[in-house]
């Protein structure tokens, strides 16, 4: 049996625009809400609504446990109907939440160099990971984490305030309005030789085009890379088999595994993400 999961009603404390197409929602939950691991996600719905029918998967962006309640932060991009309706919710409105779900990031032993590669709202689980696991990384075992963060333009770069001081920040924009002018993977490519594969790990999250070019970039590079993958979901619990992604299984055989249960974090070298979800996004967008 998995860790005990729960469907709970949360009350929105804040639901604020943080970029032209991104919102941050803060949800108050009962204190019994299990502590999420970085990379885990929740299934979110408006409570008491028949439509949209399905909950939407959103990564945990922040979490604090208090004595009598828990605070969950979500960062979401207006992708379609569901997220647009989320953005119209007001403080006091209720959401139904299942989670935390999925398998988060794994922190390998003895590493000294941590790279984060984020596109758009892909920053959400990575910031949570950074804050939750690497706050003391620098002092303890090595170099400051490096955070590559890309977006279409400067106005869509979100989460900077949380990253300040915790890492070396490398910003990229498609239009050059801030930082490197071009996709985040292009900047990484030009610097990848500088990292020692034996002591480096990459954590990545972003739109499918970004993941695909990251895959090309690291194809023959031994640096391990864990990537959080997105697919449409119905249950989030491993029951519907709707959210599968192809992986190279044992013996390089292609097989379908569930993003919600076996993922959402996969080894980049094994996963074969579908290009058919979220293809509108530029590489830097999510």
């Amino acid at each position, binding site marked *: 049996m998995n860790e005990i999961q*729960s469907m709970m009603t949360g009350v929105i404390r804040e639901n604020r625009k943080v970029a032209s197409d991104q919102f941050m929602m803060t949800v108050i939950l009962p204190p019994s809400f299990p502590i999420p691991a970085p990379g885990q996600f929740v299934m979110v719905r408006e409570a008491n609504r028949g439509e949209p*029918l399905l909950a939407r998967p959103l990564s945990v962006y922040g979490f604090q446990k208090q004595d009598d309640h828990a605070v969950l932060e979500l960062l979401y991009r207006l992708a379609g109907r569901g997220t647009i309706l989320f953005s119209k919710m007001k403080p006091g409105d209720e959401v*139904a939440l299942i989670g935390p779900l999925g398998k988060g990031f794994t922190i390998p032993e003895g590493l000294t160099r941590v790279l984060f590669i984020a596109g758009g709202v892909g920053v959400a689980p990575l910031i949570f990971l950074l804050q939750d696991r690497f706050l003391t990384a620098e002092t303890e075992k090595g170099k400051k984490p490096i955070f590559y963060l890309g977006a279409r333009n400067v106005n869509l770069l979100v989460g900077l305030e949380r990253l300040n001081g915790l890492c070396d920040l490398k910003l990229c924009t498609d239009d050059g309005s801030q930082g490197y002018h071009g996709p985040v993977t292009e900047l990484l490519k030009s610097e990848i030789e500088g990292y020692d594969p034996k002591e480096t790990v990459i954590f990545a999250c972003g739109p499918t085009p970004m993941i695909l070019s990251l895959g090309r970039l690291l194809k023959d590079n031994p640096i391990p890379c864990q990537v959080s993958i997105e697919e449409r979901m119905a249950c989030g619990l491993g029951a*519907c088999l709707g959210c599968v992604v*192809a992986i190279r299984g044992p013996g390089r055989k292609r097989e379908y595994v569930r993003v919600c249960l076996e993922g959402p974090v996969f080894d980049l070298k094994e996963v074969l993400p579908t290009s058919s979800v979220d293809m509108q996004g530029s590489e830097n967008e999510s």
Partner: protein
Amino acid sequence: MNPKSEEDRIELQDLTIAIGSMTLKNPVMTASGTFGYGEEYAPFVDLNRLGAVVVKGLSLEPRSGNPPPRIMETPSGMLNAVGLQNIGVRDFIARKLPFLRRYDTAVIANIFGETVDEYRQVAEILNGTEGIHAIEVNISCPNVKRGGISFGACPDAAAEITRHIRSETDLPLIVKLTPNVTDIAQIALAVEAAGADAVSLINTVTGMSVDIERRRPHLANVTGGLSGPAIRPIALRMVWQVVRAVKVPVIGIGGIMTASDALEFLITGARAVEIGTANFIQPAATMEILDGIKDYMIRHKIGKITELIGSLDTGTQGNC
């Protein structure tokens, strides 16, 4: 209002129903493919309280299913084209059934095959197996063709498959019908004559949806099966058609999200209901539905669920 204790209250209601030789403690079952192998929902649902668990469709050999994307939301519904991905009947027995055996709840194996003989073999393997209480035969798999029409859309083919499985097992045999037909009652009559102990309906309605920006279908498989509240009125109508045609019990399926929805089916004549897509929306949906049915019975002073089943009053009207 009610001076009785919670325990007394519950004992006053008799929710047991019979499907063939099998007695279920209540009419709330899970629908195949929407509840995994039960274990996925154990954190949310007291499996012991369910009438039965119907597991994900089982084939003779493991199947990898269709490529993604496999699901798409639609108004009050969803399309799926999972393509019957499953671990195969033998692996199910070895790796999944032991967990379910720990519960005092009927386990119904949903089965399918690409040929009549495959169905027969799956049934044969299940027949001797401890912990399997009934077989539900999915004859509405859109990938299984026979003369261009799936088994479930043709009365003769449906009857033939039923006969073959019947000859293989004494387990209660439920045949699950597809709604994608002109006259579902005719198919129900055919499988009843061929030895089915019950029919369950409906499976998903074939549907489609298109990404207009890319001018491609949303599902890799192009079409998929529509489920959820959107199809409930269709399912209820078909249940009504079938209960008036056959004598065997009818199990109602399709868009049941709440106790009220389940009661519509029971009142219309379904002996039991299967809860599908609702599990995705609210993992404890089955428990809420069960409690709601009990509350309704208390409120309406109905002691036995069987008094409720088929109690629909259509007056003098009702030309379908």
